[in-house]
């Protein structure tokens, strides 16, 4: 499996199947959904970051002309205090429900409290102002270290720290403590000639998808609930809504509309159960849309964090020990991605002695949600900055020290798993040989930096059905919502098996009643796992079609061979028929052919990236300009290279935004003061150069074509790469994100 091979379809760059719909404005996204009799819903949100709800009076809103129904947490069934796995990781249902509509306490500004359905969105919005909520305002906790202090105000009176499986007696804001240990860190540090230790702080940042959350729900008279929405996973929406409403999954159909970006932020549900409650109450279909401020204040950002990293090395650059302390803000409810951060932090290196401590801490900010390689960028900002400092102090080239210590097949990650075949060294070597790295870089206040990153990728369940058409094409049915061209990368794998062009596949993403269970589009799994299911479904088609050829030729099935789109008889008879011609003869040979493939593959195979960046620092203003950017990444096998490059470029640019501009700015009361795209400043095209994406292909043994997930790892290296470039430019180590002009001026001693 997965040897280097020549492919016909894989590795080419066909026009994506949904392309014309998307460039003509025809593609229907969640908010575009229309239906007769539609009502419009609006959510009332808490103005306080931390408060007890004393009472909610909805009578004035209910009496307002045009209002058809109002709901609060009272309309939700009582939630069990139980943990369920509903998508990307486990969720406590009580917390999940309270995040949908607050019952006893509001835990962040923007926390949903009630919702109104009315005949127009404007009326719904006006009616929200007529809901009277009485709060007892409590002091907020807005920073992870402050939240960990013994006398910090508590968010949850019942939350007790679980430390490596054991629960503490006293309540705390620290939900859990994990530790991974490898070898003997003390001994490792004793062997070091040089030890560098630094602490790092990163701000709260948002996924920033351009499409706000949306949901339209309708209850039929027979109790069938249908939800049309944008989501990364229709099946996880079905599961979450079923748990929250305590309603059977068999009575819920989720129709995934086109989705305008997610990056991890459209896995958890927010307004979908609210739309369902309003639909139930009013007996009408109800559409709920968030506005941009709702998205910032009411949906998962990714954690702010405090990270401390200590690493030791011998004079010749061998890293002997590493230690990390990761404290992540979970937001209002437990579940910060500190686990993944701990899995990834030292994974680009082969280090014998490691200890990593991770803390998941609640604070009065929105409940965090996954964001592209969740947890890994926070961690890598620390570790990759420290590696750079060690290299500089030992006067070793920063790529050289990474090569010297680079992770290889057979090495053990600190949290346990042994690396299979990985491309860490290959990406480093490619970066080192790239003309960018060897180009001169001598100007004043210009600097170059590098950093590496790792993400483990996931597999999970996927299902694909293929219906064969009489004209030699196939209809491919899948359940993975397409956020970045995966209809094509999945279709191409089926096309490769069947020896037909990519254009002969019609891929469709369908609702939860129409395809087998498929996990979320997340964890960089879609082209890998759903592609794998498409491969299996196409193999199934191939087997069934071979049987049809055997029937035509009146030979044994074993005598039929398939290669290059042709079935041929290998025993005596000189028979041959193309896939296309055989498709026209299915009726006479037994009826339609349908192939299916289902997988839950274990061999996702981790991805490595190394980025090289040149910056210019403006000494007067503190502004950092990105002059040149090269991102090298192991994709295993790039099915559609353009969309692999796109993932790399997009991830790198999100990282650039995180590094230089993006953060939630809070006032003392816990109000985000920059909840708009004007003030929460994501990169525009004017802030950037072209991003040179370089694909390395070290095939993943866990996939028939060698695919590795590519979506997430490119956001891991940019922050440290840019920090290291800034150091190279002005000799100052930046340890706080974002590295905005004011922080640079402060670091340079100018203000």
């Amino acid at each position, binding site marked *: 499996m997965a040897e280097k091979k020549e492919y016909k379809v894989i590795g080419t*760059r066909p*026009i*994506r199947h*949904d*392309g*014309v719909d*998307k*460039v*003509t*404005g*025809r*593609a229907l*996204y969640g*908010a*575009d959904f*229309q239906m007769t009799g539609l009502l419009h819903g609006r959510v009332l949100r808490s103005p306080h970051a931390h408060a007890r709800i004393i009472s909610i009076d909805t009578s004035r809103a209910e009496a307002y*002309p*045009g209002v058809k129904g109002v709901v609060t947490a009272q309309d939700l069934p009582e939630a069990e205090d139980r943990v369920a796995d509903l998508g990307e990781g486990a969720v406590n249902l009580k917390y999940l429900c309270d995040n949908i509509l607050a019952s006893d306490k509001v835990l962040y500004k923007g926390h949903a409290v009630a919702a109104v359905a009315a005949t127009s969105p*404007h*009326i719904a919005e006006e009616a929200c102002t007529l809901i009277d909520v009485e709060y007892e305002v409590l002091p907020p906790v807005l920073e992870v270290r402050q939240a960990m202090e013994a006398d910090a105000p508590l968010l949850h009176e019942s939350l007790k720290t679980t430390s490596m499986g054991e629960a503490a007696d006293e309540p705390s804001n620290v939900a859990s403590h994990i530790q991974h240990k490898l070898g003997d860190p003390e001994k490792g540090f004793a062997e070091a000639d040089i030890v560098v230790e630094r602490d790092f702080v990163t701000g709260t940042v948002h996924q*920033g*998808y*351009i*499409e*706000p959350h949306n949901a339209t729900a309708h209850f039929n008279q027979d109790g069938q609930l249908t939800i049309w929405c944008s989501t990364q996973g229709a099946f996880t929406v079905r599961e979450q809504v079923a748990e929250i409403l305590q309603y059977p999954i068999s009575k819920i159909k989720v129709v995934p509309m*086109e*989705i*305008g*970006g997610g*990056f991890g932020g459209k896995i958890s549900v927010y307004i979908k159960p609210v739309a369902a409650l309003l639909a139930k109450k009013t007996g009408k279909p109800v559409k709920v*849309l968030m*506005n*941009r401020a709702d998205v910032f204040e009411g949906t998962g950002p990714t954690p702010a964090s405090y990270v401390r990293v200590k690493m030791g090395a011998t004079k010749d650059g061998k890293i002997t020990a590493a230690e990390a302390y990761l404290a992540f803000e979970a937001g209002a409810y437990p579940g910060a991605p500190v686990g993944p951060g701990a899995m990834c932090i030292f994974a680009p290196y082969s280090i014998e002695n490691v200890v990593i401590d991770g803390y998941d801490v609640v604070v009065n900010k929105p409940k965090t949600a996954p964001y592209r390689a969740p947890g890994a960028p926070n961690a890598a900002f620390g570790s990759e900055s420290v590696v750079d400092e060690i290299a500089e102090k030992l006067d070793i080239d920063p790529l050289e020290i990474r090569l010297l210590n680079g992770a290889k097949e057979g090495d053990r990650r600190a949290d346990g798993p042994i690396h299979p075949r990985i491309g860490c060294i290959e990406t480093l070597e490619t970066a080192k040989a790239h003309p960018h790295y060897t180009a001169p870089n001598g100007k004043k206040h210009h600097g170059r930096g590098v950093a590496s990153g790792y993400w483990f990728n996931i597999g999970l369940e996927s299902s694909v059905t293929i219906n064969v058409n009489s004209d030699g094409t196939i209809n491919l049915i899948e359940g993975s919502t397409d*956020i*970045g*061209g995966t209809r094509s990368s999945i279709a191409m794998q089926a096309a490769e098996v069947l020896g037909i062009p990519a254009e002969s596949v019609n891929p469709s993403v369908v609702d939860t009643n129409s395809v087998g269970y498929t996990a979320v589009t997340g964890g960089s799994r879609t082209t890998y796992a759903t592609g794998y299911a498409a491969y299996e479904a196409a193999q199934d088609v191939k087997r069934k079609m071979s049987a049809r050829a055997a029937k035509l030729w009146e030979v044994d099935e074993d005598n039929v061979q398939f290669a290059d789109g042709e079935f041929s008889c290998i025993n005596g008879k000189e028979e041959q028929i193309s896939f296309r011609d055989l498709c026209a003869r299915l009726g006479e040979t037994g009826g339609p052919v349908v192939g299916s493939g289902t997988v839950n593959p274990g061999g996702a195979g981790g991805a490595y990236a190394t980025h090289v960046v040149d910056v210019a620092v403006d000494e007067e203003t503190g502004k950092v300009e990105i002059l040149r950017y090269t991102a090298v990444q192991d994709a295993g096998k790039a099915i*559609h290279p*353009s*969309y692999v*490059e*796109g*993932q790399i*470029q*997009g*991830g*790198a*640019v*999100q990282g650039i935004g995180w590094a230089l501009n993006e953060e939630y700015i809070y006032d003392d009361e816990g109000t985000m003061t920059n909840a*708009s*795209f*004007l003030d929460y400043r*994501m*990169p*525009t*095209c*004017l802030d*950037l150069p*072209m*991003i040179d*994406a370089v694909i390395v292909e070290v095939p993943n043994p866990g996939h028939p074509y060698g695919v590795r997930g590519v979506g997430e790892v490119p956001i891991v290296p940019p922050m440290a790469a840019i920090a290291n470039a800034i150091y190279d430019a002005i000799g100052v180590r930046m340890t706080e994100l974002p590295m905005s002009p004011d922080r640079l001026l402060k670091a340079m001693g100018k203000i």
Partner: protein
Amino acid sequence: MARKSHVQTTINGETVEFLCESRQSLLEVLRDELYLTGAKEGCNNGNCGACSVILDGRLVNSCLVLGVETEGKSVETIEGLAEPDKLHPIQDAFLENAALQCGICTPGFIMSAKALLDSNPNPTEHEIRYWLAGNLCRCTGYDKIVKAVMDAAKEASA
């Protein structure tokens, strides 16, 4: 309920009449009254460009224009760009260059690029980046979008 006004305007070359409340933006009218959902709402306050349309030859954010303001004017939206059997060269260039991922920003970028190329058929890379800075894309890192617009310009002048 607020009273509705009658408005007559031209959309993609066709005369269109609609009723709207004076507080409804052009974006709301296009999407909710006329079912032209190609223009998208990303922010509703002029910061993302997803709602870009061309009004009397000028690029605007339709979320910042009121529906009633379009009386007697001419609006071009993404739905009017392609010919029945042929895409507009900018649309082709976006597809050829894989300049979209999720595609939610795409109609806005294409309308914005059209307004640019209508007024400046041979823009430099910097001019393209400057012009498109009012359109946000979170997926692509802009690389392939900028290349698509450069290609479309080349195509048009060839």
